[in-house]
């Protein structure tokens, strides 16, 4: 973990009453890297994502992205600083069309939203950004569908597209493959592989095939602590990791 890491989390602590949900977690993500975070249910993965994105306040520790201190910033300020996230439970605007979803995401990062009288539909640049986002996640053919009526896999892609509108330098993906069939999972893996060129990624995922296929580095979280961190082979061979997480299902 050099000082030049793109993203650094140092000594993150979160307590819920007497429970130490996040126990002095250090984490770094390098430029262009996909860093996977795995761990059994209840290990504190979602808590960690919420601490990093700012939805939960930290009880200790600090965060920085590209040299910018994120620790005290509100969630929307962290997004502006280049840290964008997706949600484990798909979080799109279900009553609006795919296009309206993308326009809303594009608007957040192109000029002020405190414009009260001019029609947004007249803004061509927003439209271009939205269409480009749709292309990226392969939803250009579904622009006028109501987002809530799309199949699960397509909604997850839309969720990713919303996060991409921020042109993030670090993208947090919270279990992007959750609830997906094999076909959709393959597409999502391909999408994440494609995004590698645009942004560093912190990937929280249960699907081990996907993790071992995508990750440059893997950290294992257990009881709120980082149990081990290293490349895929190191994690696969780590005895403690096998004991707590991979269990008898280890594929070698």
């Amino acid at each position, binding site marked *: 973990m050099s000082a030049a890491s793109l993203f650094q989390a140092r000594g993150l602590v979160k307590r819920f009453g007497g429970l130490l949900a996040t126990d002095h977690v250090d984490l770094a993500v390098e430029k262009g890297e996909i860093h996977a975070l795995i761990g059994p249910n209840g290990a504190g993965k979602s808590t960690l994502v919420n601490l990093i*994105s700012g*939805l939960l306040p930290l009880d200790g520790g600090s965060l920085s992205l590209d040299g910018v201190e994120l620790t005290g910033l*509100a*969630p*929307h300020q962290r*997004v*502006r600083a280049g840290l*964008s*996230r997706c*949600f484990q439970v798909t*979080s*799109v*605007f*279900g*009553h*609006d069309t795919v*296009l*309206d979803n993308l*326009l*809303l*995401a594009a*608007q*957040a*990062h192109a*000029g*002020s*939203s*405190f*414009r*009260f*009288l*001019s*029609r*947004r*539909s*007249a803004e*061509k640049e927003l*439209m*271009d950004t939205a*269409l*480009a986002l749709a*292309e990226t996640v392969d939803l*250009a053919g579904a*622009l*006028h569908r109501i987002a809530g009526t799309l199949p699960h896999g397509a909604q997850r892609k839309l969720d990713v597209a*919303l*996060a991409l*509108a*921020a042109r993030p330098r670090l993208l947090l993906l919270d279990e992007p493959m959750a609830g997906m069939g094999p076909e959709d999972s393959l597409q999502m893996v391909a999408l994440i592989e494609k995004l590698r060129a645009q942004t560093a990624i912190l990937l929280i995922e249960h699907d081990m095939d996907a993790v071992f296929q995508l990750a440059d580095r893997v950290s294992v979280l257990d009881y709120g602590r980082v149990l081990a961190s290293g490349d895929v082979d190191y994690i696969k061979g780590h005895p403690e990791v096998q004991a707590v997480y991979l269990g008898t299902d280890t594929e070698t």
Partner: protein
Amino acid sequence: MTQSERIAPSATVPARRFDAAGILPWAVFALLAAVPLIAPHFGLEYYVGFVRHMLIVAIAATSLNVILGYGGMVALGHAGFVGVGAYAAVALVEAGVGSAWLAWGGALAAGAVFAALTGAVSLRTRGVYFLMITLAFAQMLYYLAVSLRTYGGDDGYGLYTPLSLGWLDGVHGDVFYWVVLALAALVFALASRLAVSRFGHALMGIRDNETRMAALGYPVYRIKLAAFTGAGALAGLAGGLLASHNAFVSPSLMHWTESATLLVMVVLGGRGRRWGAPLGVAIWYTLAEVLKINTEYWHWPLGLMLLLVVFLAPRGVAALFERRRGEG
């Protein structure tokens, strides 16, 4: 990409250039503008004042629709803003201001300031807590007004000298009616435009999914506070107009039942819909008026009719019309 070229036009250019929806506001405006000219011929002078009152309430309801309908903020203190505006206008008149425009401007500013201050606190809460805290602020105002001896306390306070409308004075006996109509139309146009603006889209996004909006990078709190302040300003303006209309103010303007009535009117008309607020106000006042003519116990049938509407048009009367147009 050829794909983007194919898709963009249908999405940017409004699909309907010329249809009933475009003429409707102008038709309604013309009809309302004609009321003071036509009504006297049928001995219905009373209804000029009646419609004027409805137009003023429609301004307040439209401002509530911005925060309730577009913003999803269920506030139960909107009459507080109206009251602040009314008392601000009275205070200005008491201080020697003779111009209606100044008094109403003061009402608007007072509504904005009060909304900004209370919004800064109450918007840190959500749902039922938000409802309760907005109610609490309005109730504080109510009791403050009750205890204000200078302005008559519980008995209220009369405005005996009519305010000056500047060069409009003496143009016509009903010039105040047209001024109110113009202001109501302006507020309606503003709210309609807001709904398709960047700010409106952001506000509706917050209504639908606040967490996601923050994760998209939107300053959620600031956007809500701006909407709340703007709505407070317009409700304050309505209060100032109401003080002129009644030539009288009293604490009952701010009673929580007034806030509830505004809420009911907006929900009845269709929250978050362009015509929701004016339609709700029109239906409410017309029903109440018709029933009052026929029975002293008009609350009963009014309640029953409202129940009926809620069951038949849960998304408001305006939503019914939209669906019908969609089918046609």
